[in-house]
Structures are given as structure tokens and as C-alpha cells.
């Protein structure tokens, strides 16, 4: 509840201020609200560059979800692999080894 309150409150401030400032304030409110926004712009740029197409409004959120799923799979597989080697940490070697398969799993 409170985060939304803050947001609405800031929305007023945003409306009154210039767009640049509005962005900054939005970011700040997100930080205040404890929501760590994923780097939406970066994500969008990356995907746009690779797809050579524009992204619709909420597509990037889904992409982010997909990325999180990918990351979970990757880390899980890598953890299994590094456990096989007796490592207690996630070994970069196992990550590298697992990357190919996991990428293939997420290929369209």
C-alpha cells in the first residue's frame, strides 16, 4: 500500500516538473519503494538490437521473466554440475559447460 501511495504522491510531483526530472523522480521513488526495477531500457535496447524490431509495450516485462527463468535454469544446472565436482560455490567452469545446453533449451 505504502509504495503505491508514494508513487501517486510522486506522480503529482512528476506532473508538475520537467520530463527529465520526472524520470529521476520515478527512479528515486522506485528505489524508495524497495522495488529494484530491472534495467528496462537496457533490456529493451539489447533485444531491439538483436531482433531489429520494436518492442511492444509490455513485451520487455515478459522477456525479463523469460530471462529470469533462463537464469534459474542456468544456475540450477551449473550448481548441479559444480556439486558433482565437489565445489561449494558456483564454479565458472560449470557455468560455461552448462551454458550451451541451457541456451539450447531456451531456443525458440
Amino acid at each position, binding site marked *: 500500500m505504502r509504495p503505491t501511495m508514494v508513487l501517486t504522491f510522486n506522480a503529482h510531483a512528476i506532473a508538475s516538473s520537467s520530463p527529465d526530472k520526472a*524520470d529521476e523522480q520515478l*527512479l528515486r521513488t522506485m*528505489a524508495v519503494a524497495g522495488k*529494484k*526495477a*530491472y*534495467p*528496462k*531500457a*537496457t*533490456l529493451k*535496447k*539489447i*533485444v*531491439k*538490437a*538483436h*531482433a*531489429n*524490431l*520494436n*518492442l*511492444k509495450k*509490455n*513485451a520487455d516485462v*515478459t*522477456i525479463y*521473466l*523469460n*530471462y*529470469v*527463468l*533462463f*537464469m*534459474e535454469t*542456468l*544456475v*540450477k544446472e551449473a*550448481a548441479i554440475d*559444480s*556439486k558433482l565436482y565437489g565445489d*561449494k*560455490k*558456483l*564454479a*565458472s*567452469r560449470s*557455468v*560455461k559447460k552448462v*551454458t550451451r545446453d*541451457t*541456451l539450447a533449451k*531456451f*531456443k*525458440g
Partner: protein
Amino acid sequence: MTTPSAHRTPSRSEPPPSAHSVHTPLDRTGAHNALNSVRRGTSQQPPSRNAPTPHGRAARRQLMDRRTAIFTPGKKRRKSQNDQREDAMDVLRHLGKALAPNSQVIHSSSSMDSSDGSPESTDKKRKDSKKKPRLSVWEEDDGLDDNFPLDRPRFSLPIDQDDDEEEDLPPPRLSENYTVQSVEMPRRADPERDQARLSMLGGRMSDVFGTLPPEEGGEGQRESDFFDEGLYENLMNRPADDEYNRIDDDTIRRETMGGDDFQMGTPGGMDEPSTFAMSPPIIPDPELTAPILEEATGGFELDAGSDGEPAPFEDFDDREPFEDIPGGSDEEGIPMNDAPSDREGSVDPTNDLTENITAPQDGPGRDAMPARKKTRISRHGVEYPSLPPAFVKKVAQRALQSSGLSNPRLSTDTLDALTQASEWFFEQLGDDLGAYASHAKRKTVEESDVVTLMRR
């Protein structure tokens, strides 16, 4: 002997005088028994009844033995019936016995090594008569082609000849050994290959390790981002960074499919990327020149001030660590840009150095390009920012919490690997999404595309 019978006869004769009709069965039985025993064998006689005394028993036994001796077929009898009883095996045995003196040939042929020592003259003559035609076949086969499977069946016989003539033994043996080796070879070779792989890995690992000391220095780099004094560490780290750059350059090539696309897309500014891709092999030079340049970079603002030649240098080496970070953060709207700045710092300087050395004319082009952190160029010639490692780290650590590893911390190597993986992931994802959207004849990637991709 007679006494028992005498005894019995009175005992048994007693009833006959009394009743003649009745008495006979006993005597008959005795006579019957005797006859039966003679004809049918021993089984029917109950000795215990007829011979109450041990002497009588012994007499019966002797009788029985005689009878059995009479009726059991002796050797002569067997021989007489031999023709009827003979099997195929017996025939063969007879044949073997008949041929016994000559049969040693087989022994010689069966085992080649022993045959080498023990070929007899008669055997040889036989073999020669038999083999010479076969030998001709053998030689023909040899002349036609080296068919190992064909050679093997003849294997045993001709070998002797070969041994006699010349050492042609090796070919069949070789074939055998060769097949055996071909079976074993992988086993033996596997460890070697593994070692080679390990060495390959080791090479990579060494590359990665090359980044390790820099990783310590990486922190230094981060510090350098904030403090001017970190420059020296940056300079020190650069050679290691060069190695890292090689990897990155490879990835860049992979991602961008070579510099051709660049030139196709935008020839003006893209000439630099081509040199960009070419630069890595020239790396030793930058290393040599690096200290000098770095010394020059000691006065960062000096280079920045002189825009003439070192303009690109200024753009990447100088600005990125310092000025670009805040700029990048503003652009991307990401609060934490420290790590990406490090990456840029590590990647760009070598490229810049090489470019400075190889193509100083790149300066204006570089100026045209936005002085971003680590911009890459996609297959379609579109620049895109690199994935911020902090973001990757955040996502990965969240995933790592549920992985069950005891130590949920991420090392720098691992983070690099994860970042690399996620960059590949986004590249692949972008390609797939683009394919989906273009297949639907759309110009925009929609959520449904992503959902379709995720459902697959």
C-alpha cells in the same frame, strides 16, 4: 550244499506224500525259479527263502554269478555286434585311427607359431599341393585390394607358406592388431584428449585466471572509477585485460557475425568496427605501447584536451572509467553501473590502443559514436549496450538461493560466465523474437511472441 536241499526235500516232501496234488507247487516253484532265473536273469530269485543257511546262500550266489557270467555279453560278443552299434563318432574314430600317422598336419596348421617350428616334410608336401592354388588366390586378393575380412579366414593356412617365403605374417597380424588397437585406441587416447581438453580448458582458465589478478585489480578498477589514483592499477591490469579482450572480441565476432555486416549496414562509421575486429591479433603491439600510452594517459585531461589524434583514445580510455559511468547510468536509468563500467574499462582500452596504433583516422568516427560504456553492435548493425553485470548478479543470486549450494556467493569468474551466457541468451532471444514477429508480418515484437517463445 546238498544238505539244505536234503533238509528241504524232506520238509517239503512231507506234504507231497500227504497230498500229491498240493505238494507240487513248491517243487514247481523251485524248478520254475531255476528256469526263470536262467532265462530272465537274477531278479526273480528270492535267495533268503530258498537258502536258509549261509552255505546255501553262498551256493546260490555262486550259481547266480555263473549265470550272470554266461548271459552278460563278453568282449567277443560286443565285437560281433560292433557293426550294429557303431555311431558316426565311431566311424570317425576309426577313420582317425586309420589316418593317425598322417594326421599331424592338422596340428601344424591350427597353430601358426608351433607350425613354424614343426612343419614336417610330408605335411609340407601335402600342404604345398593344397596350398599352392590357395596361395594364388591369396596373392590375388592382395593384389586386388587389402581386404582384411577376406584375409582372415585363410589366415591359418597360407601363413606357413608366407613364413617360408617371406615374412608376410605381419599383414594379417597387423590387421588383427590394428583392429584391436582401433578398439583400444580411443580408450588410450581418451585421457590424452581429455588432457588436451583440460589443457584447452586450462588455456581458457588461464585466460580467465588472467582476469583473476585483474579481478583483484578489477576492484582496483572500480576504485579507479571513483579515484584518480587507481589509474596505475588500470594500467597494470591492461595486459591481463587484453587477454580478456580477446575473448570478448571473439564473442563480438560471434555476435556480430564478422565485420562484413557492419560495413553493409553503415559503411561510414562501421569501418572502425572492422578494424575493431581485426585488432586483437595485433595485441602484443599495444602491450608494448601500452605503458607509453598509459603514461600519456596519466594526463587524462591532457589527451582530452588535444582532440586531434587521440580523440578516440580519450573517448574510451579516459572517459569511460570516469566520465562515462555517470553518463551511462543516466542513459540506462540503472542506479548501479559500477560493474559495467569496469567491463568497459577492461574491454575498450586495448581496442582503442590497437585502433590508435593501426588506424588513427578512426578518431572522427569514434567521436560520432556515442562514448558509451561497452557498446556492441548486433548482427543488424544496431548498437546495444552490454548487460550490466550487477543486474545479472542480482538475478543469478536470486536463482542461486534456491539452488541448494552451500555458498551462495558468486565469484567474478562465475559472474563473467553468467554475464556472457545471458548476453548470448539475449542475442538468441532477440533473434528468435525477431523471427517470430517477422513471421507474423509484424514490425513489432509483441508479448504473444515472447509467450510463444517461452511455451515452446
